[in-house]
């Protein structure tokens, strides 16, 4: 019975962390799959969103949920502008230029946030309804983790339905699988991409706000967790919503368990596993063969 409780709390904590990873990374996966653009600034959008949420709550007294909506909209709008003005120029550029451009963008974001808010961690207080613990029958667990799991599952389901059942989702899938063919069928890739990019950055912002409780929120956020977001995308496969979902849960649970039982070498294990996996399947666990 004790073991069961342990496993349950391990799974709940890991899945909650995995949901945040999923919400942040899903946009990155789709945009990388669509345009092959190496966007190292994606973590920066998550950070920007987190800051927007924290600021809206502190300065304007907005509630948690309206603040999250504000963060989503602001980041989506900002990223759409950046995409049209700057990213679009580099779609056919060499990988190195994309890497440099997005690293530069991350530096600008970090410096701007440090100037405006200082280098310290921004507190993001949860509403009292989400604090404390909840009785699940077999075990008591933190309410917020349960809420994260529910929200993440709802978002995953919504995205899955959106990609599988809507016209735009079909266009995205077509473009990920064969961009030229999709273009010659009259799909406006540029418009599709701007929308997807803005939506994906908005999702990252949502993840930044939702995950600030355990990931923290300081100007180094954008670089600190970038490797994790990239690992999730690479393991899940480019442009695959379901792939990212399972990869995020897998890595969330693994990371949570390893941090608990193997606090010293846990990260080492994840890196090694990622390398082995990518050597075995360069297209990721769920990606289509290139």
């Amino acid at each position: 019975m004790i073991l069961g409780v342990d496993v349950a709390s391990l799974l709940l904590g890991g899945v909650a962390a995995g949901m945040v990873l999923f919400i942040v990374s899903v946009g990155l996966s789709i945009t990388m799959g669509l345009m092959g653009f190496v966007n190292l600034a994606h973590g920066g959008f998550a950070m920007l969103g987190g800051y927007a949420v924290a600021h809206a709550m502190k300065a304007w007294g907005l509630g948690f949920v309206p603040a999250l909506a504000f963060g989503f909209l602001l980041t989506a709008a900002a990223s759409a502008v950046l995409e049209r003005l700057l990213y679009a120029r580099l779609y056919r550029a060499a990988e190195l230029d994309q890497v440099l451009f997005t690293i530069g963008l991350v530096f600008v974001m970090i410096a701007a946030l440090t100037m405006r808010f200082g280098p310290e961690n921004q507190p993001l207080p949860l509403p009292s309804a989400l604090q404390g613990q909840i009785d699940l029958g077999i075990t008591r667990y933190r309410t917020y983790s349960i809420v994260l799991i529910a929200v993440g599952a709802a978002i995953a389901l919504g995205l899955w339905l959106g990609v599988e059942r809507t016209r735009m989702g079909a266009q995205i899938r077509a473009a990920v699988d064969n961009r030229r063919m999709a273009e010659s069928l009259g799909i406006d890739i540029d418009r599709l991409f701007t929308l997807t990019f803005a939506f994906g950055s908005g999702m990252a912002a949502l993840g930044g706000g939702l995950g600030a409780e355990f990931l923290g929120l300081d100007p180094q956020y954008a670089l600190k967790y970038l490797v994790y977001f990239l690992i999730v995308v690479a393991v899940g496969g480019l442009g695959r919503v379901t792939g990212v979902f399972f990869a995020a849960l897998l890595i969330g649970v693994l990371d949570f368990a390893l941090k608990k039982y193997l606090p010293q070498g846990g990260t080492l294990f994840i890196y090694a596993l990622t390398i082995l996996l990518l050597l075995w399947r360069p297209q990721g666990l769920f990606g289509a063969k290139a």
Partner: protein
Amino acid sequence: MTGAHPAALALARRHRLRPGEALPWLLALGWFFAFPRHLGFGTEVLITILFAVSLDLALGYAGIVTLGHAAFFGAGAYTVGMLAKHGIWHEPLTGLALAGAVAAAVGFGSGLVLLRTRGLTLLMLTLCTMALLEEAANLAHAWTGGFDGLDSLPIAPLLGRFEFNPLIPRTQYLYALAVLFLCFAFVRTLVYSPFGQSLTGIRENAPRMHAVGAPVPRRLVVCYTLSAAIAGIAGGIWAQANAYVNLGTLGLDRAATVLIILALGGHGRLYGPFVGAVAYMALAHYLSKIYPTAWQLGLGLLLVVIALFAKNGILGIAAALGPRRRAGA
């Protein structure tokens, strides 16, 4: 030279030494006599140039886009550091050779498997390999000093005579300059050789190089190994000159910095690392201490501008403005 193939003549012409190529070395020697109080900074610049030259070989010539080049710098630095700290080996020149050999082994081993991939997968794999090494160095506390690193490394005098004095780093400066010169001469010869030309061919069009029968994977692994060895030598000098090694030698910061330096100077051009390292280090040295945030903002904007408008860095701009068609390459 009658009868020689025109292509061979053109290659030989490009290989020819130009008078301007003496300039960096004269400036470096001039710095030694003109600014005896700034030799520590000078040594740091020379080591950074060497590191950037190694990356230029892999990225600029062979087109291997890596985010994890600091893995080799760190491998070299930790080789020197651990051998010295645990009383196994103190002699600097052979220590440096060992650093290069260990880094080359890491480069060969990882290159053998990583270089089969391209694009995002390659980027991720190089990044993860470096993170793996960093994490391993962090964990193996007994040997590597963990998070604190190893300091006060006992390094024997160079050639048995010249002490590495941390306060008056004259030996370090000339030593780093000499090693940089030798490594650079090697890289210069290499990139103008048929081997180097085939690397450029692979960068420009790998399928076509396959089609003409070039052993593409083998060439890439050899190039990656050589590049790793030079990066390891750079790391080895860094550890010897500072009598110190820490996790920062293996980190993403260092890997990103050297990438930025190469992009700033111009990649795939022999002298890009020189221009980039001097420009970056001078700016970083004077600005980052006074206005760290503004420095990061400026650096970020600079990178965005380079990526969007100046794809070949400072040398690329100079070449576009100057009368000659392509400087250095």
